[in-house]
C-alpha cells in the first residue's frame, strides 16, 4: 500500500510537478516512460515518489518513447491504469503506436509537454507535437497553467477509462512556460483526488485468465472502415458529454470551472483572438487592457482540442465581426490549423465575420503583449472594413522582413 502524501491546500508547483502528483494520486498501475526535455521531470518526480514509498504501481523505464508507448499498450490491454509523458521528438517517435492505442480502444493517459519538432533541433515550447497528434484518435485536452494540468489529468483518467469511451487521452501543456514555471496550485487530498478519478474497471483484460481475448487483430477492406467509424463515433458522441460531466463534478468538488471552450470577455465581443496554451492567458490580459479603452475585445481558448467542439466554438464566436486565429506550429504550406478549424466551424452559420491567421512563437519565441495589441488593432480595422485589411496569414514576432501570405 502506497503511503499517503500530505499536501498543503495550496502548493507551489510547475506543470510537470502538477502532472506527477496527479499520476500519483490516481494510483496508476503502470507508468512506462522515456525521458525527454521538457517532460522529463514528470517521470523523474514520479520515480522519486516511488523511491520513497508513495507509489505501489510498476515503473518501467523503456529504451525509447516507442518502447514506452508499446509497453503502455501491453499494460493497458492487460487491464489496469496506465500513464506516461513525452514531448516533441519523443512524441514523433511514438506516433505509430499512438494510432495503435486508440485503434485498439485502450485508455492510456499521455502528458504531452508541447515542444517544437526538429530540424532545427529546439527544446522549447511550441505546438508542433500537439498538432501532429490531432488525427491519431486520442482525446486531446489543452492546459494553460499548472492548475489546469493537475485538474485535467484527473478529468482525463475518468473520461478515457469510461467504458462507453475507452480511448486514450493526451493532456497538453506548454514546454517550459507551463512545465517549468512554478505557480500556486490548489490541491485535493489523496483520497479525494483518487475518488474523483475512480477505481479502474477492467474490460477485455488479457489478465482475466478464464476469458482469453485477442487484441490487435487485422482487418482489411471488409471490416477496417467499420472499426474506424466506430472509433470516430465514440470520440464524437460520447466524449464531449462525459468531459462536461467531469467538469461539472470537478466544479462541485473544487469550485473551479472549466469549459469545453474557454470564453473570456466574449459576451459582447466584436473582435476575438482564438488560441491555445499559455497564450490564452496573455491574450486575456491584453483584452482587459483594451476593454479599459472601451474596445470590445475577447478571447476564445481551445480547451478540448479533440474531439473538436465545433458547435460550441461557433456559438462562442457567432457575434464577432473579426477573428484572429493564432497557430503556434508551422503550417508548412497552408494556413494554420486553427484557421481551418474555425473557418469550418463558422462556414455554414449566419455569422459574417472576418477571419485571419497568425503564426507565432515557433521554437519558444515569446508571444509579447505588444504583438497581441497589434493583432487586435488589425482586427479592429478588419471589423470596421468588413473584409481583411491585412494578408490572410501573417507571421508575428519574426525577425527580418515581414512574412505574409494569401
Amino acid at each position, binding site marked *: 500500500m502506497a503511503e499517503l502524501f500530505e499536501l498543503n491546500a495550496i502548493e507551489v508547483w510547475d506543470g510537470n510537478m502538477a502532472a506527477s502528483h496527479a499520476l500519483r494520486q490516481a494510483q496508476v498501475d503502470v507508468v512506462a516512460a522515456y525521458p525527454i526535455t521538457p517532460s522529463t521531470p514528470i517521470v523523474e518526480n514520479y520515480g522519486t515518489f516511488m523511491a520513497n514509498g508513495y507509489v505501489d504501481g510498476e515503473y518501467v523505464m523503456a529504451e525509447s518513447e516507442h518502447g514506452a508507448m508499446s509497453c503502455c499498450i501491453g499494460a493497458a490491454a*492487460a487491464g*489496469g491504469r496506465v500513464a506516461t509523458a513525452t514531448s516533441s521528438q519523443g512524441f514523433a517517435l511514438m506516433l505509430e503506436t499512438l494510432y495503435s492505442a486508440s485503434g485498439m480502444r485502450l485508455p492510456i493517459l499521455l502528458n504531452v509537454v508541447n515542444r517544437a519538432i526538429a530540424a532545427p533541433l529546439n527544446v522549447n515550447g511550441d505546438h508542433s507535437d500537439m498538432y501532429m497528434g490531432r488525427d491519431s484518435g486520442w482525446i486531446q485536452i489543452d492546459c494553460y497553467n499548472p492548475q489546469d494540468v493537475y485538474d485535467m489529468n484527473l478529468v482525463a483518467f475518468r473520461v478515457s477509462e469510461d467504458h462507453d469511451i475507452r480511448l486514450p487521452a493526451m493532456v497538453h501543456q506548454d514546454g517550459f512556460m507551463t512545465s517549468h514555471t512554478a505557480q500556486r496550485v490548489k490541491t485535493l487530498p489523496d483520497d479525494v483526488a483518487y475518488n474523483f478519478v475512480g477505481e479502474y474497471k477492467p474490460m477485455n483484460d488479457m489478465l482475466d485468465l478464464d476469458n482469453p481475448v485477442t487484441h490487435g487483430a487485422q482487418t482489411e477492406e471488409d471490416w477496417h472502415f467499420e472499426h474506424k467509424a466506430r472509433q470516430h463515433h465514440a470520440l464524437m458522441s460520447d466524449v464531449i458529454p462525459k468531459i462536461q460531466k467531469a467538469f461539472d463534478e470537478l466544479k462541485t468538488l473544487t469550485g473551479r470551472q472549466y469549459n469545453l471552450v474557454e470564453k473570456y470577455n466574449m459576451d459582447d465581443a466584436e473582435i476575438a483572438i482564438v488560441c491555445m496554451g499559455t497564450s490564452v492567458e496573455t491574450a486575456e490580459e491584453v483584452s482587459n487592457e483594451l476593454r479599459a479603452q472601451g474596445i470590445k475585445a475577447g478571447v476564445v481558448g481551445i480547451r478540448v482540442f479533440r474531439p473538436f467542439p465545433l458547435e460550441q466554438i461557433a456559438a462562442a464566436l457567432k457575434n464577432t465581426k473579426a477573428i484572429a486565429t493564432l497557430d503556434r506550429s508551422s503550417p508548412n504550406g497552408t494556413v494554420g490549423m486553427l484557421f481551418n478549424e474555425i473557418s469550418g466551424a463558422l462556414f455554414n452559420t449566419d455569422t459574417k465575420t472576418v477571419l485571419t491567421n497568425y503564426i507565432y512563437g515557433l521554437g519558444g519565441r515569446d508571444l509579447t503583449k505588444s504583438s497581441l495589441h497589434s493583432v487586435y488593432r488589425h482586427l479592429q480595422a478588419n471589423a470596421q472594413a468588413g473584409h481583411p485589411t491585412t494578408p490572410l496569414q501573417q507571421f508575428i514576432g519574426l525577425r527580418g522582413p515581414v512574412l505574409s501570405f494569401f
Partner: protein
Amino acid sequence: MSQTKTKNLKNFSTSAERFEGANLLCPGCAHSIIVREVLNATDDNLILAASTGCLEVCTAVYPHTSWDASWIHIGFENGSSAVAGAEAMHKALKNKGRLKQPDRTPKFVAFGGDGATYDIGFQWISGCFERGHNMMYVCLDNEVYANTGGQRSSSTPIGASATTSPAGRASYGEKRNKKDIMAIMAAHGAPYVAQVAPNKWKDMVKKIQTGFATEGPVFINAMSACTTEWKFAPEDTIAISDLATESLVFPLYEIIDGTELNITYRPKNIIPVRDYLGAQGRFKHLFSKQYEYLIDEWQNRVDAKWEYLQRREEARV
C-alpha cells in the same frame, strides 16, 4: 510450475490446443509446429504477443482468432514490449491484490519472425532483456521477410537468393553472413538463451520448459523452415529441418547466464552442408560452375562454428 508430460509424441500432440489448426499459414509452415510445441510445453495460462509477420497475419484476422489464450499484436517491432507491458501490469496488480485469479501465474511469451527480431524489433527486445522482464521471446527464424514476399533480413544466410538480394549473372545473392543473434542475446546476460528446431521436438520442449522455469527474460531462436521462400515441397518441412540439424547448419545449444554453453544435440552421422543447400530452391544457383566455390566456403564456416561451440562448451566460459 505445471508441465505437460512429454513422454511420447502422441501424448504431446494431443495435449489441449491453445493454438488452433484453423489458421491461414502455408501448408507445411514450420511456424505452427513451433508455436504448438511452445504452447503445449506448459499447462499454465499464457499471455501471448506477436509482432507483425506471417504468424500474426495468419492467426488473427477479424472476426476470427486462432488463439485460445490472451494474445496481443501492436506492430512489427514491439511484440516484446507488448508482452513486457502486460507482465509489468501483472506485477502491479499482484502487488495491489487486484488479480482476478491470484492463485495462477501465467507465462508471458512473445513471438516474432527474424525480421521482427534480428532487424526492426531488435532495440525493443534488447530493452526488455536489459530490464529483466519475466518473459520468453521466441524468434521464428525463417531467415527472410516471408510475410511480404521474401526480402532479405539480417538473418538471411550468405548465398541465399532473396527478392532484395537476388542471385543473377552478376551476383550470388545475399552477401552477408547471418547475424549471430544467440551470442548477442547471451551477451545481455539473459539467464537462458537456446536454439531449437521443431524436428528435434524433445530437445525443444525440454528447452522451452527450462525457459518457463527460469526467472527473467528467456530467448529462444527457433529454426522455422519456410516452404514458400526456401523453396521446397510443403510435405518436406521436417526432412529439410533434419538436413539443417544433421549438417550442423543449425546447431542446437543453450547458453545459461550468458556464459555456460551446452550443446544439446550431436548428430550421429554429420551430413555435408551441400545436401542441405541442394534441397532448397533459394540456393539452387550455388550449384552452377560460377558460384560452386561458395559451397566449400559454407562447409568451412559451419565446421568452424561447430568447432567454436565445442570449445566454448569444453571451456565452460
